[in-house]
Structures are given as C-alpha cells and as structure tokens.
C-alpha cells in the first residue's frame, strides 16, 4: 500500500464511530477551523490557492481561483454540493456518512474564507443516513460554539443549513442545484453568467463547492497549502478519492496521491483493486463517471491525474472508475448509460430532451436484436446534433453539460466496438445473452 494513502480526507476511516463528535475531536477535529479563525480570511484563501486543490466535483476547477472570482456584495452564499449522483461515484456518500464533522468544519472554513452570509449543505435526498449524520454534526457544531454567533469566541458568526434534495441527477450541475435549492425544478440556468460566483443563489454571488473539496480544507489549513501541494504532480495536487467499481475484485474507495498511481495499479495492484475476477480479461475502463469516454485496455498505464487523462481524450471527472471485463456486452453497457441520461435529462432544452430519448430507443432496439445497419450512422448523427463533430472535449448545442455527456459512451462504444454492434444487428440478438 502506498504510504500516502488515506491520510487526508479518509484519515478517520479506520476509527470506530468516525461520524461522532468525540471521535472527531479526539482526532484533530476543529483544529483547522481554530487556526483559520486566527488568520485573516484572505490568508485562508491564499492557503487554498497555494494548495491548488482542484474541485472534486467533476469539472476540476481550481477551488481557490473559484473563490477569488466571487463578486463583491454584502450578501453572498456558500453552497456545498453533496448531490453525488454520477453513476459509480460514491466517495461523497462515504464522507457524508462517515466523517460528517469534517464536512461541517470544512464548510465553516470555506464560509469564513469567503465571508458567506449563510452556508447551505445540499445533500442528495437519497442519503437518508447521511442527512441524519450531517444534521447531527451541525447540531454538535452549534453546541461546541463552532457555529452561531461569535464562533470560538471570534467575531465571525455563521449559520449552516442542511438542505435535502429529492432525486434528480441534474441537480449536481451547480446552477440546477441552486434552482433546486430555491425550491424550483432543477433546470440548469442558461449561461452567461457562467459562474454562480457572479449571480448565484437568490441572485447573489455564490460559491458552490463539492463535499470532498471542502472536506480537505481542515487538513489544508492545519498543514498549510504547501504541504498539500507537495503531494501529487503538476496541476493535480494532493490526494484524491478514487471510487473503483465494476468487475474488479476489490471495489471501493482509494485515497491516492494524484498522478502517482496509474489505472493499471489501481485495478490490478493487490492492495488496491486486486485485479479482475479469475479468468477474465479487461475490455474497457470508464475513467471518470459515465460522462467520460471509455479507455481501452492498452491505455491503462495512464496516470490518475486530471491533465493526463484529459490528454488521452477523456476525463478524470468525479474520480470514479468502472471496470468492464470480457463478459460484458458493450452494447448493453452503452445502452444502460444512454438510458441513464434519458431518465435524468431535465427536459428543458430540445437536443438533450429529445436526443437522449431517441438515442436510448435506438440503443435498446439494437441490444434487443431489432437494429439496422443504418442505425449506427443514425446514432452518430444524433450524437452530432448534440455535440457538433462528436468531438472531445465536446462542443454543445445544449444549455448545460448533461447534453454532451449523452453521446460519450454511445459514440465511443460504436467506435471501439463496432463489430459487437454489428453482431447484434446481424444475429438479431445479444451474443452475451
């Protein structure tokens, strides 16, 4: 096991009752906040900029830079995005249930740094236990003086409100999340303005940060941005939780120093993924959530770094890695992903609403053995109407990035496994059934 593994956000993983306040306080909890409060807010921001932590939600934008883009206004909000719904991504779910105090402390630090008027923790509604534990952690924070008026005797005062979502993948998109938090349908906002830091919640400047991102803040403040930056490589600093799932022996969460590990290590190393099931060979890997184009077995020596994966024509996204072995029907895999987008399209703009549903129907037909050869060209053209040129990184005809996520697996499936598609069509059924 690499020595740096599990030291930052998953640091309390091995502790019993890691979600309880006592455990938290006995393992360095709230030291980061106390230190932050002894600093000027702008110096906390400086530390986070120094750390160069990239947002852990999927887009990978520098968190410190995001903070500095906050438009000047007396009222501004912090919203924590805990709407983790990207298929095969389960790191935030774990952090929320198992280290909720860390999340709350990170939230207070972020709120202090940007001077938020109020902070909202938006949790995916399905995380019932997580909601209980985060609310408990918030209640505890008030009890020990970490929230409310004059936090830890300082002049800083803050309220944190827990907000439950209600089941819609699109609310992970930050503007849809804000709409949802305002009590509306989760329709992503049309851009410009491009960033909630300009116009966000209730029209006020708002910072939206991911759960894992803020969960890193107590460590970063305690140990300094430089210490975080010393880990990882290039733009990909620090550690990151990789969620490994699919047809691998040891699915689970692995906090790894960025770039220092490859996909091969993660999947095959004994202390990590443990390899494939016996007798199976690797067919494809989805590197960063189902919006990401797949990578082929010959590409798995790629390092787990943001720019590294981007260079290879895909993305590290939410850091979830899905392994598919040779027992997998790739048409079925691509169809299931298209079905996901069809079910989760918000319906606001035409290409996504109609495109996702049309593509899913054609994919289902091919998988069921009723495909036609011309369907492959049709699919590529339907993809082209959502992502002109079916390029990567994608252009888009849609309001938000859910649209361009639709073609990824379908187009890459056809490109990588065209023969498998044709077999379905010629044999009138799925060869894996």
């Amino acid at each position, binding site marked *: 096991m690499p020595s740096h593994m599990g030291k930052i956000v998953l640091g309390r993983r091995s502790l019993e009752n890691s979600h309880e306040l006592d455990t938290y306080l006995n393992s360095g909890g709230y030291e980061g906040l106390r230190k932050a409060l002894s600093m*000027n*807010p*702008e110096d906390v921001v*400086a530390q986070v*900029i120094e750390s160069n932590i990239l947002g852990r939600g999927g887009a990978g934008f520098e968190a410190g830079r995001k903070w*500095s883009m906050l438009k000047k206004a*007396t009222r*501004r909000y912090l919203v924590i995005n805990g709407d*983790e*719904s*990207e*298929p*095969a*991504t*389960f790191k935030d779910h774990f952090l929320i249930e198992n280290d909720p105090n860390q999340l709350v402390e990170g939230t207070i630090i972020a709120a202090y740094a940007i*001077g938020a*008027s*109020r902070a909202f923790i938006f949790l*995916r*509604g*399905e*995380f019932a236990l997580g*909601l*209980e534990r985060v*609310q408990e952690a*918030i*209640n505890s924070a*008030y009890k020990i003086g970490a929230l*409310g*008026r004059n936090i830890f005797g300082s002049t800083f*005062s*803050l*309220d944190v*409100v*827990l*907000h*439950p979502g*209600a*089941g819609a993948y699109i609310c992970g998109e930050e503007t849809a999340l804000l709409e*949802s*938090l*305002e*009590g*509306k*349908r989760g329709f992503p906002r049309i851009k410009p303005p491009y960033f909630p830091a300009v116009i966000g919640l209730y029209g006020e400047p708002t910072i939206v940060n991911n759960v894992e991102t803020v969960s890193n803040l107590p460590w970063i403040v305690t140990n300094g941005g430089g210490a975080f930056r010393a880990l990882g490589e290039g733009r990909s600093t620090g550690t990151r939780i990789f*969620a*490994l*799932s*699919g047809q691998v022996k040891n*699915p*689970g*969460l692995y906090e790894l120093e960025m770039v220092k590990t490859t996909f091969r290590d993660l999947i095959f190393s004994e202390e990590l993924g443990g390899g494939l099931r016996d007798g199976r060979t690797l067919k494809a890997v989805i590197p960063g959530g189902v919006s990401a184009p797949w990578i082929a077995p010959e590409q798995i020596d790629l390092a787990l770094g943001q720019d590294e994966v981007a260079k290879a024509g895909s993305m590290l996204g939410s850091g979830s890695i*899905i392994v*598919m072995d040779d027992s997998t029907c790739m048409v079925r*895999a691509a169809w299931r*992903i298209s079905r*996901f987008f069809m*079910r*989760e399209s*918000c319906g606001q703009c035409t290409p996504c609403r109609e495109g996702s549903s049309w593509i899913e129907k054609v994919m289902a037909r091919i998988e069921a053995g009723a495909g036609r050869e011309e369907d492959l060209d049709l699919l590529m053209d339907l993809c082209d109407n959502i992502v002109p040129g079916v390029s990567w990184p994608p252009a888009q005809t849609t309001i938000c990035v859910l649209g361009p996520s639709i073609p990824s697996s379908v187009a890459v499936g056809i490109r990588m496994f065209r023969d498998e598609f044709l077999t379905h069509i010629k044999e009138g059924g799925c060869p894996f059934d």
Partner: protein
Amino acid sequence: MGRFKQQILTEALEIVKLYPEAKSATIPLCHLAQSVDGYLTKDAIDHIAELTGTTPAEVYGTASFYDMIQLHPVGRYVIGVCTNIACMLQGGYELLEEAEGTFGAAVGETSPDGLFTVEEVECLATCDRAPCLHVNYRYFGPLNAEGVAKLKEDLIGGQLESKVPVHGVLSRVKRQTPELIPMDEVDNLRASEDASKAERTSAQGGSNA
C-alpha cells in the same frame, strides 16, 4: 392527513424559517408531507403552496421533477433497485427481477398487501456493494436471491425497524440549534468585515485575494 397538522406543522414552519426565501422550503416540505402519507397529497400540495408563498401548480411542477417525491400512494416500504452501470455489471437487473418476485410487485407498482412498492432506480452511490438496493433509502448490498428473501423476512418480522424507518428521509433529521441569526444582522457583520479587509489590503498596497 392532507394538510400539515400539529407538530408536523410546527416543523414545517421551522423549516420555512431556515431560508431567506420561503420557496426554498418546497422540497423539504414535500419530504415532510411524505413522512406522514408516503406520498404528496393534493391537500399537502395546496398547503405547501400557502406556506411557501407559491401556487399549487409551482409546487406540483417542482415536486413532479424529482424522483423521490411520490405523487401517488406507495407501500409502507419503497424498494429501489439500482440497475445503473456499476450494479448492472454485477447483476443489477437480476436483482431487480428477484425483488419484483419476492416483494410481489412489478416496477412502479405496489404489492397487493400494500407493503412494498418496487422501483428501478439510478445509481445509489453504494457501488462497492453492488448489486444493491434501498428500502426507504436505507441501503442493502451486495444482495443475491437469498439476501432479498432474508430482507423481506426481516422487514416483515420487524428486525429492521431501527434501521429502516417508515417513509420520509427527514423523519429522523432534527435540527436542534439556536434560532438563525437574522439576515440583516449578518449583512451588517459582513459589511464591517469587508471594510476592515479593505483597510488591510490597502495598507498592504493592495494584494489580490
């Protein structure tokens, strides 16, 4: 119930107070209504509209957008089987079929005894335990046929009463904190903090951040 009553109404009013704009309470109040009825009744829609200063059409529009808000009666236990990619690769569809048989309800339907409603759901972020399902949003996995049968037995037998409460993800979420600081008080605080920050930065000759 229909409209909120007694302690639920008190809770509802507390929730509304958490937000600078009452409309934000729409979804939490839908959850709250479901904790009583399992689904969102017409009366609850009307009452939520009153409490949040919106129209029933807006509440309905918002509620119907979200998978968790039920617009029709459901069983005592809502069972959501994940068939998304990570679970599918580990037998999610087989689990779904098993669940339909065991719980006696096809997807989207409720068993004749009114106990179970079965749904096919998207990723539950529990992929290390694939294939998995939730019962009233408490997670179980990995599950095979025997696991499903045992689960049903335990649910009926009451062994899971503490782990799986009936309806409402908010039924055990209780905010116990002082009253929120009024927004205008916060505005004043932030304004003075911003002023001292401006002083500091101008003293330093103006740095960014």
